[in-house]
């Protein structure tokens, strides 16, 4: 029978299933210090063992210090506690940890593809909501809580209600200067932050096929803000070329065997989805958010909706509250809004291609006075690669801070933050209240929009600089 990509992976990993859900075999478990340490600690306290430690990987990314010259211990006291427990518990359980001083360290969803930990056709879980990012490689990857992580660690399985399937079919060529981030914000603005709720969302169509692997990761990353259970893209020659030769990827005869299996994963042409959305990529514009939820987004030359009716999927209270928090008036233009902060980083947009595109905007230009501009590479590997190309020099010359890798100021965990009522243009994925600091006002956008805005000192359209 014809099956979707999701169904093929689901069935291959299904130990048993009834109407309530299935017991699914888990191939890879990823942990970070913020939610993984507590899971390992709790598991050990209950006297339970990690079933397959060789299939578990951990990194330190969430609360690690990203300032230049950091050490194993630098950062806040809070960070030290979380890192300490993670080091102790991973060592006790025999789990590979990519620690702060490890050249492979970085944001969990950046390093897993980079190291070949995630592979097409695998099931992968992590106690982190943006785990769906890794579906870009054709894996079924989803975020869980710490208690479910304990279950996965103890049993190498999870009990999961079967999600419905949705295909988001995207066709047409993205206009010049429009990125996968803009495409994702366009989708979320059009269909709401709960538009994909509970669905295993497959991104398909010629626009998706044309994206490079890192662009696919950005798109899948943002599916979390669409409330998808998971996002997935059929593996193709680009995927295989990306995975080949990576540290933990299969090699030799195993590689050929794997690719033969992976080719079969794509959804069958006659497979049925429970829901389908279509997006015309040719009409997508660079996007920027104006509110406190990713669905509150408009094209960069647009305006804040003049009335809550104009803000799709909003109600009067959330509309008013968002405007009050963001310090904006109904009908305000986004272009020209003065900013105090610019941030490039996070599991959404911190990979080499993101930094290259930001550097293309920043080359030979200077960040406007009064703007604090920060770039945090997604992994230590990305940082080295960018430095090998001289991207660091371009950014530093422009006035950006060039950091060590980590999640950094994607969220405020008691360390560094943007100030109260400061307006920040950010390549991250969440513009929630207080996300980048109490009362900080976050506008989500692509790395090139962040770069162009940093130069202008206000929200600006990068296309005017790249012509």
């Amino acid at each position: 029978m014809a099956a979707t990509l999701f169904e093929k992976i689901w069935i291959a990993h299904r130990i048993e299933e009834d109407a309530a859900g299935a017991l699914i075999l888990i191939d890879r478990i990823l942990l970070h210090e913020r939610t993984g340490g507590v899971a390992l600690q709790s598991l050990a306290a209950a006297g339970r063992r990690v079933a397959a430690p060789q299939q578990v990987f951990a990194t330190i990314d969430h609360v690690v210090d990203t300032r230049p010259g950091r050490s194993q211990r630098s950062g806040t006291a809070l960070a030290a506690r979380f890192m300490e427990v993670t080091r102790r518990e991973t060592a006790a359980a025999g789990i590979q940890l990519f620690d702060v001083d490890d050249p492979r360290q970085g944001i969990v969803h950046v390093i897993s593809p980079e190291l070949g930990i995630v592979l097409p056709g695998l099931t992968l879980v992590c106690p982190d909501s943006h785990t769906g990012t890794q579906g870009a490689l054709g894996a079924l990857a989803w975020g869980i809580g710490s208690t479910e992580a304990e279950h996965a660690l103890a049993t190498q399985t999870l009990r999961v209600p079967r999600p419905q399937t949705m295909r988001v079919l995207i066709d047409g060529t993205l206009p010049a200067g429009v990125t996968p981030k803009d495409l994702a914000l366009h989708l979320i603005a059009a269909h709401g932050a709960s538009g994909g709720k509970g669905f295993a969302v497959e991104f398909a169509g010629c626009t998706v096929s044309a994206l490079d692997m890192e662009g696919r990761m950005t798109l899948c990353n943002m599916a979390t803000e669409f409330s998808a259970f998971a996002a997935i893209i059929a593996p193709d020659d680009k995927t295989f070329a990306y995975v080949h030769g990576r540290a933990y990827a299969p090699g030799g005869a195993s590689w050929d065997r794997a690719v033969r299996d992976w080719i079969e994963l794509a959804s069958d042409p006659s497979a049925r989805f429970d829901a389908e959305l279509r997006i015309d990529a040719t009409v997508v514009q660079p996007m920027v958010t104006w509110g406190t939820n990713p669905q509150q987004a408009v094209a960069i030359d647009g305006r804040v909706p003049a009335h809550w009716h104009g803000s799709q999927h909003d109600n009067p209270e959330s509309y008013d509250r968002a405007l009050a928090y963001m310090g904006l008036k109904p009908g305000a233009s986004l272009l020209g809004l003065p900013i105090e902060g610019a941030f490039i980083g996070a599991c959404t947009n911190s990979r080499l291609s993101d930094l290259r595109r930001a550097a293309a905007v920043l080359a030979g230009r200077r960040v406007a006075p009064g703007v604090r501009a920060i770039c945090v590479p997604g992994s230590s590997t990305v940082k080295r690669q960018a430095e090998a190309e001289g991207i660091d020099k371009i950014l530093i010359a422009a006035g950006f801070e060039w950091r060590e890798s980590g999640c950094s100021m994607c969220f405020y965990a008691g360390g560094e933050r943007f100030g109260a009522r400061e307006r920040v243009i950010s390549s991250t994925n969440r513009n929630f209240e207080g996300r980048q600091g109490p009362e900080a006002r976050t506008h989500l956008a692509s790395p090139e929009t962040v770069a162009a805005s940093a130069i202008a000192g206000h929200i600006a359209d990068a296309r005017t600089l790249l012509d």
Partner: protein
Amino acid sequence: MQPFLPLTAVALPLLRDNIDTDTLIPSREITAVSKTGLAPGLFAGWRYLGGDHAKPDPAFELNQSAYRGAQVLLAGENFGCGSSREQAVWALAEYGFRVLAAPSFNPIFYRNCVRNGIVPAMLPANQIAEIARWVAADPQRNRLSVDLRARRIGTPDHRSWQFTIPDESRDFLLRGVDAIDETLKLRDRIAEFRAADQLRRPWAYEIDTAPRDAVQSDVDML
């Protein structure tokens, strides 16, 4: 986990859509590697003026005496969206909330609730608004009764609303089982499945524990 027993309690209406887990507990409030000690951080951004625990904001419902002892939270669409941090659920539970009623929940948050003994009850937004109006008229007197077995929220004057919760979640909460213990009963079955899977997909199990030097090769991978 303790089985969920019927309760009658004060309810707190907070009918905003998309209340995210950063709002439920800001990251800065998660200061210990622990599942406890989190209740003071619950709703910290809304609950305290300037984030200072010594300065409760009197305008925020949680700080009002009318809602003291609330165990039921009435909320809007997409409750618990955002970060997967289970600290949001641990903080709600520690504060005393046992039932969350909303038109919809974020899926990870929903599962975290069930795994921690909190009932995520789904009702249409108009019904939640109706319940909230009744509660707000006199919160300490107008308490709600929640019967999970019957999937019913009721008032002392015999009005009631049916809520939705999947059978699996309901049974899990009513029984108060340990999910890991349940699964470990299938240990042999899992091992058998895994052994067969390893023959089908050997590449998925060949994890090089001494991987090729990632540092030397990463620039060459470009």
